[in-house]
């Protein structure tokens, strides 16, 4: 049975490296489309300024992109280094989308991103636009495959346990691809990336406008960002709601934890806007509730109940007890009894095998668990409510803020009132870090809310780890934190340096810091 320190450290390492990775991914996802929009305008109008916009924002895109690549390599290999049993147990299903991501998406993105930077003089305008488009397509397809893999962790469809090979095996590739969790999750996640990129471009452009630098460059960038951002902010919210609906269908525990819904309410359930969740007392103090709202979001109906935590725990206890029988039946089959009766007994109970495995944390044998141990395992099935409750609410509040920001930016720009509304420019600038906070909290809700499972109801997290030593994981965790932090500092230094320099960094001679040096080059 794996060492618990190794489990906790491996989880901390995965969370840290994944959150670091996702500091860079969103900008790649969103900025690539913004580059496509800018370059399309260049190809259609032939105006040089749009080429400069594509190249300048492309420079910032590149500074961010390489960090995404560097931190992404870790993600591809970390399942093997730190989650070896997971890799064996579900590799038959989970490995496929990761391999497809490489074959179909990451190759495309990476081959053409090099061409994006270096082939301006070697390709026609339309060819180069196609290259930029393929970078955007590749990076977004990449996200699609990764989120299909992630959706399967949340809702493991199209797979079945095989007692011969002691692992989960694929039964339907179609079900894996069209997992009801996958679609909304993909659109919600990439749209969040588009929002982040839009806020990024909007904020930096606002800063140029505040300084009165390169106004024609800044206002056009501002315009692209506000339009793209408005559409994206809307889809984040709509698809977030769709995500909520699909969560309600298949991840009842996560939903109940996010809502701190301790009791099953009479439908349609109310939505707790604020309150103080208390896990020990199984109560939310000072709750402010909106009637009906929860039932409508999660079930799209007035009469379907949303299960509360206490009822879910009863259900889990039954499944854990059934899981003990499933484990006993599995031991019998693996011990060599292949009689039809033994197999039938196992097949009848195997859907609860995962619940039985939860007991491995307390007793290696599972079947001899005491009532106390069962009670502990039942308590484990509910993730920590308070962090999920708060993370979710801050995320939602921030996404409403982005919607307001883009509506304001769009309207004020359309009415040509930016000069009178300098507050908006300041607010846009200071909003730059907010999407990253919202997205990190979103991932915490999705993944921390999946606990105690690495694969929902199939494989507990504490069984998933490699048999490595605590010292080894400390070594890697310390190294990742040190390297990533150092590289992040360098990245931010360059990002600030080039954002401050603005389009002058292109060396065209047409922009703010080059005004004095116009005759040098490229001015004609």
């Amino acid at each position, binding site marked *: 049975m794996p060492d618990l320190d190794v489990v906790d450290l491996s989880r901390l390492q995965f969370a840290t490296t994944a959150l670091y990775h996702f500091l860079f991914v969103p900008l790649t996802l969103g900025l690539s489309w913004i580059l496509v929009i800018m370059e399309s305008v260049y190809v259609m109008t032939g105006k040089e300024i749009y080429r400069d916009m594509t190249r300048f924002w492309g420079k910032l895109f*590149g500074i961010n992109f390489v960090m995404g690549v560097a931190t992404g390599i870790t993600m591809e*290999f970390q399942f093997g280094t730190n989650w070896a*049993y997971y890799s064996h147990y579900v*590799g038959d299903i989970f*490995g*496929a989308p990761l391999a497809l991501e490489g074959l179909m998406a*990451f190759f495309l993105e990476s081959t053409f991103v090099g061409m994006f*930077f270096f082939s301006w003089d070697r390709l026609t305008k339309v060819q180069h636009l196609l290259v930029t488009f393929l970078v955007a397509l590749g990076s977004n397809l990449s996200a699609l495959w990764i989120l299909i893999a992630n959706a399967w962790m949340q809702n493991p469809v199209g797979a079945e346990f095989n007692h011969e090979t002691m692992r989960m095996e694929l039964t339907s590739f179609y079900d894996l691809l069209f997992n009801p969790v996958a679609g909304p999750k993909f659109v919600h996640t990439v749209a969040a990336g588009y929002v982040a990129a839009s806020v990024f471009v909007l904020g930096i452009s606002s800063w140029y406008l505040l300084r009165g630098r390169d106004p024609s460059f800044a206002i056009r960038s501002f315009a692209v960002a506000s339009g793209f951002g408005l559409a994206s902010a809307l889809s984040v919210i709509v698809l977030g709601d769709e995500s909520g609906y699909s969560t309600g269908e298949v991840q009842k525990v996560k939903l109940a934890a996010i809502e701190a819904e301790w009791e099953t309410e009479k439908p349609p359930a109310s939505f707790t806007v604020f309150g103080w969740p208390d896990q020990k007392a199984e109560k939310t103090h000072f709750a402010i509730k909106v009637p009906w709202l929860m039932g409508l979001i999660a079930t799209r109906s007035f009469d379907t109940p949303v299960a509360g935590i206490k009822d879910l725990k009863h259900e889990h206890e039954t499944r854990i007890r059934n899981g003990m029988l499933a484990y006993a039946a599995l031991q019998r089959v693996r011990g060599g009894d292949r009689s039809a009766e033994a197999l039938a007994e196992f097949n009848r109970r195997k859907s609860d095998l995962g619940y039985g495995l939860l007991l491995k944390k307390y007793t290696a044998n599972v079947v001899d668990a005491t009532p106390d141990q069962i009670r502990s395992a039942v308590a484990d099935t509910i993730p920590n409510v308070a962090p999920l409750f708060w993370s979710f609410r801050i995320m939602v509040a921030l996404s409403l803020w982005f919607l307001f920001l883009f509506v304001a930016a769009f309207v004020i720009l359309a009415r040509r009132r930016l000069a009178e509304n300098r507050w908006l420019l300041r607010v846009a600038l200071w909003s730059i870090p907010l999407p990253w906070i919202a997205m990190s909290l979103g991932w915490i809700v999705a993944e921390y809310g999946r606990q105690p499972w690495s694969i929902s109801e199939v494989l507990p997290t504490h069984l998933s780890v490699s048999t490595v030593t605590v010292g080894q994981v400390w070594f890697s965790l310390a190294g990742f934190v040190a390297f990533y932090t150092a590289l992040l500092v360098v990245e931010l230094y360059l990002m600030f340096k080039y954002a401050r320099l603005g389009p002058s960094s292109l060396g065209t001679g047409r922009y703010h810091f080059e005004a004095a040096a116009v005759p040098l080059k490229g001015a004609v």
Partner: protein
Amino acid sequence: MIYVFDYATLKLIWWVFVGVLLIGFAVMDGKDLGLGTLLPFVGRSDDERRVMLNTIGPHWEGNQVWFITAGGATFAAWPLVYATAFSGFYVALILTLFALFFRPVGFDYRSKVPDPRWRNAWDWGIFIGGTVPLLVFGVAFGNLLQGVPFHFDQDLRVHYTGSFVGLLNPFALLAGVVSVSLLAMHGAIYLQLRTEGAVLRRAATAGRIAGSVFIVTFAGAGAWLVMGIEGYAITAMPPANSAFMPLAKTVAHGPGSWLRGAPLHPWTVIVPLVGIVAALLALAASRRRAMLAFVLSATAVVCVVLTAGFALFPFVMPSSTDPRSSLTLYDSVSSHRTLQIMFWATLIFLPLIIAYTGWAYRVMRGKITERQVREAGPALY
């Protein structure tokens, strides 16, 4: 689901596919890694180093994906190999990841600040990012050929009983030198194709030195393998067409070379010889016919990967402490269904990848010169 190939055939096909991905990685990304090893020595001035970096500037990102995809495909097709190799070689692989961090950021960030100390620091970062992974991959193969100490328990959880220092044994270190020198040679020959002047002259010298080291160490490692390394052989296993896991077979481990223990085909013996001849011819051709030399050098790289694969066949990762736990292409694989789906995916996408990669090289073809990088300023690395 309709199965075009039976399970046993697909298992064999996937051994070939993983080999193809590793070869793609070695030929394409290997030259970029080797170029990283050469960077501080072949390039003396900032302009010279910029010339070197810009020969792979538009391509290194795509090439690196061979590594990522080989990892992903191993996960999908050989989950037990993915789980066992990466958790077993934990410290070595983590060090490789740390070293690889320097590459993407090094390539892009180096040119963003003109300060020579900044650039010099990144150059050594790129050197580490090229050399450490090459060394680790060589050492890893050196250990695979000797067997690695691990075993499975009844739940098929893998337990690795070796240590990081244990990986650094003489044969494995020799294999590490083979790997670094081979790809340094490959990188040097690529440089001769894409540069001129001082960089080209120094690349030629570096190529000859690296090539000589490669030929001597590769021949030495081969002789050692034949005469001094104990081999593994499967003595009994369930039918190849059935689904089974490592503990279901029996394996003999003992005196007798790999070549006798794993008889794929007698003709495979010529593969390492072709590799050595190709390297010699590549060095001879590099002065006048750089393109031919590059093809020959790539042939040498292919032969080295094939030599390791053929020597191990049908093993992928033999266990020295519990031979029946050894991973082979028959019992470390995904289900029939997954292998077939991934077979079609690979068959469709791999040719596409090769086609657009070829297009990218064609568009960016031609020599990179010092004058070019000076004039391009920030538009190039």
